[in-house]
C-alpha cells in the first residue's frame, strides 16, 4: 500500500470519514483538525511509518497531499 492509502487508513482509524478525502482536502478548513488532533495524528504516524515527526513541521501541512509529502520525506526513526 502506498503512503497516500496508508495515511487514509490511519485517518479512518482516527474516526474520519475518508470517502471525501483527496490530496487537495484542507486539513483545517474542511476536516476541522485542530492542534490537539494534529498531536494525535503525529503519534500515530510515528508508530505506523517508523519515522520521527517534528510536530511544528507537521503543522505546516495545509492539505492531505502535503501531509502525505511530509510523511514520505520524514527522517526514519533511529
Amino acid at each position: 500500500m502506498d503512503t497516500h492509502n496508508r495515511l487514509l487508513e490511519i485517518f479512518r482509524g482516527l474516526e474520519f470519514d475518508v470517502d471525501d478525502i483527496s490530496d487537495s482536502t484542507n486539513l483545517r478548513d474542511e476536516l476541522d483538525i485542530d492542534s490537539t488532533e494534529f498531536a494525535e495524528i503525529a503519534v500515530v504516524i510515528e508508530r505506523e511509518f517508523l519515522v520521527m515527526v517534528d510536530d511544528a513541521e507537521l503543522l505546516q501541512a495545509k492539505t492531505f497531499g502535503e501531509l502525505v509529502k511530509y510523511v514520505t520525506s520524514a527522517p526514519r526513526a533511529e
Partner: protein
Amino acid sequence: MTRVVVTGTGAVTPAGIGVDALWERVLSGRSCVRRIDRFDPVSYRCQVAGQADAFEAKQWLPGRFIKRTDRFTHLAVVAAEMALADAGLSIGGTDGIAPERIAVMVGNVLGGWEFAERELRDLWVDGPREVSPYQATAWFPAAPQGNICIRLGIKGRARTFVADRASGAYALVHAAETIVRGQADVVIAGGTEQPLSPYAWLCCQTGAFLAPTDDTAEPHAAYRPFDRSHGGTVVGEGSAFLILERLEHARDRGAQILAEVTGWALNTDGYMPYYTSEPHGQTMSTAMTKSLYRAGIGADELSCVLADGSAVPREDASEVLALKTALGSHAGQVPVTTLKASYGHLLGAATPADAAIAVKMLKHGLIPPVANLSRPAPGFSLDFVTGAPRTAEPMRHVLIVSRGLGGVNACLVLSGHSATTGG
C-alpha cells in the same frame, strides 16, 4: 418575582433511554441493579451496580467526538439534547433562543475515569508520548458542560458543580437562581456520572457508602433504603437533564409547562468527624423547611417527599429525623418514597433523575414505591410508599431531598403548574 418552570426532560439511565423508561422502572418497584460486567469487580466490596447497558455512544454520536471524550460526557450530551428536544427549543437563528440567554449547569462527582485510567496506564507503561492528547480535557469534571456548550453553540453562563452526591441538586438550584437573577432565560440543568471503571469504583468504595455485596449476593436486593437490613448505597451510571425556563419566556413561545420549581435551599452540616453528617439531622431539616418556605407552602400541603434514601444506616436515620422535624405534626401523613434503589444512585445525576421522575409524578398523580423496603428500621415511623404505586389526588408539591458526604444538603420543591396558577 421571576418564576421558573420545567419545559423539558431527558435521561439515559440503567432503566434505559429516555425518561419514560425511567418512569416505567420506578413504577414497577423492581430493581434493575445487576452484577458489574464492565470490569472485573471480584476484588471490590461492592460488586453490583446500575449499568446503562442500552446506551451505546456510537449509535448517538460521531466517532471523532467519542474518541475525544469519556462516557460520562457521552451520557450527558445525549441526555441534554433529549431534554432540549422535549422542550421544543432551538438555539440561535431567527427562531431559536439567543445563544447568550441560555446557560448550562452540570453536576458531577468523579470525572471521566474510564478514559483516564486507560491513558494513565499508557503513561506509566509506554511514556508520555503514548497518552492521548485528549486525556486532560476528557477527564475533568467540566468536560460535559464544555462539550454541551460547544455542540449546541451556547454562549451564556456555564458551570459544573462538584458537591458529592448533591452535585446535581446544586446544579438545579443554581440554574433556578440564574433565571431568578435575570442572567438567563433558559438553563440546561442536570448531572452525569460514570463510576464503572476500576479506580472510580475504588473511590466509591473508600467513600464508605457502598452496600457490601459479594458474588453470592442478589444484586436486585442489595440497595435497601430505610429497611431494617439497609447496608449502604448501590451506585449507577447515567445522566439526566431538565430544561428550566423563565415562565414568561416559556409562555411567549407556547412551550409545554411540565412543572414549576417553587422552592429550594442549600446548607452544610459542618460536622465532625470529617465526611460525616449530623446524626440528628437538624441542619438538613432546616434545608427542607427553607425550601418549603420559599415555595410558600406548609408541610401539610406536600403531596409527597422524594427522599435521598442512601441506605447508609446513619444517613437513613438522620434523614428520617430531619423529615420528622421539618414535617412536624404532619410527619405521619405525608407519603415518603425514594426511587434510586430501582436503578442505582446516579451520584451527580441522582437529583436531576429524581426531578425528571417528579415531573412524571406530578403529571400522573402517582407516587412510585421504594424498592426493597420490606420492614422499615426501628423508629423509622414515616408513611413510606411500598409495594405498589400510590395515587395522590391532588398531586401538587413534591419535596426532593439530596445530600452528600461532609454534610452537604440540598432540597428542591417541584410543583404542578396548575397548583401554582390555578389553571
